[in-house]
C-alpha cells in the first residue's frame, strides 16, 4: 500500500522529493491520478508505512503537503488528510 502526497506547486514537489531521497526513502514521482484533482500535475508516492515519517521530514524543511491519499488494493484512493 502506498500514499500519494499532493503539494501546492511543482517546485514544492521537487524540493520534497529531494528531501525524502536524502533521507534514503523510496519515493516515486507520479502524475496525479485522474481520480484525484490538484493544481499541480505531479505528486509523490511513498510506501504507506513510512508516510507519517515522510510528512515529518517534509515539515521540518518548511514544506507542506496539501493533501494525502492512501492508494488501496483495488486502486481506490482514500483521503487521509
Amino acid at each position: 500500500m502506498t500514499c500519494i502526497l499532493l503539494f501546492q506547486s511543482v517546485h514544492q514537489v521537487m524540493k520534497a522529493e529531494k528531501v525524502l531521497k536524502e533521507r534514503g526513502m523510496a519515493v516515486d514521482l507520479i502524475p496525479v491520478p485522474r481520480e484525484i484533482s490538484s493544481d499541480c500535475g505531479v505528486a509523490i508516492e511513498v510506501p504507506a508505512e513510512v508516510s507519517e515519517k515522510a510528512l515529518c521530514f517534509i515539515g521540518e524543511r518548511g514544506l507542506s503537503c496539501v493533501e494525502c491519499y492512501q492508494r488501496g488494493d483495488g486502486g481506490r484512493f482514500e483521503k487521509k488528510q
Partner: protein
Amino acid sequence: MKEIDCRGQACPYPVLMAKEALERLTEGEVTLIVDNVTARENVERFAKSQGCPVTVEKRGSDFHLRIQKEKSREGHETVSEKKDRGNIVVYLNSRFLGIGDEALGSILMRSYLKTLLELETKPSRLILINSGVWLSSEGSDVLETLKTLSEKGVEILSCGTCLDFYGLKEKLKVGVVSNMFTIAQALLEAERVVRP
C-alpha cells in the same frame, strides 16, 4: 485446419508466424502451438489487435491458441490496414520533456511515460535518440516504467551511436540497441510519429 508448431521458438518468431498465417487466410481458423507464456501472450495480443478472437487451451506445458478469422467484408478494413493504423511511434530525442528548465523537463518525462502506461492506446515503438538513451540506461528513474511498457508489447529502440557517445553501451537496461537504418525506417513506416 492449419496448425503451426512454434515450440522451441523465441519471440518474435511465433508472432511473425501468426501474422503470416493470418495474412494468407481469408476466412477460417489457425492453431498455433507455443511452449511459453511470453509467446502465448504476444500471439494472443497480436491476434486480438487484428480483430481475431483467440481461444487458449493448455495442454501439458504447451499452449494451443486457436485464432479465428472472419472474412473481411467490403468496406471493412483489412488486417494490414488495421495494423498500420495502430503503428504509432513515440520519438524521444532528449531525456527531458519540452524545452526549458531541465529539472522540470525530467519530471515531465517521468510523468509522461507513466501516463503512457495507464492509457489504453499504446505506441508500437518508442525510439530513444541522443540524450533520450539515458532513459533506458542504468540509473534512470523511469527504468521500471519502460520495462512495464516493454512487457506490454512496446518495442523500445535506443540509438547505438548515442549509447556509445554517452558511454552507456554496457548500461542499457531495457529494450534493444538500434541503428540509424532501423530508426529511419521505423519513422518512415509509422502511421503516426508522436514527439511529445
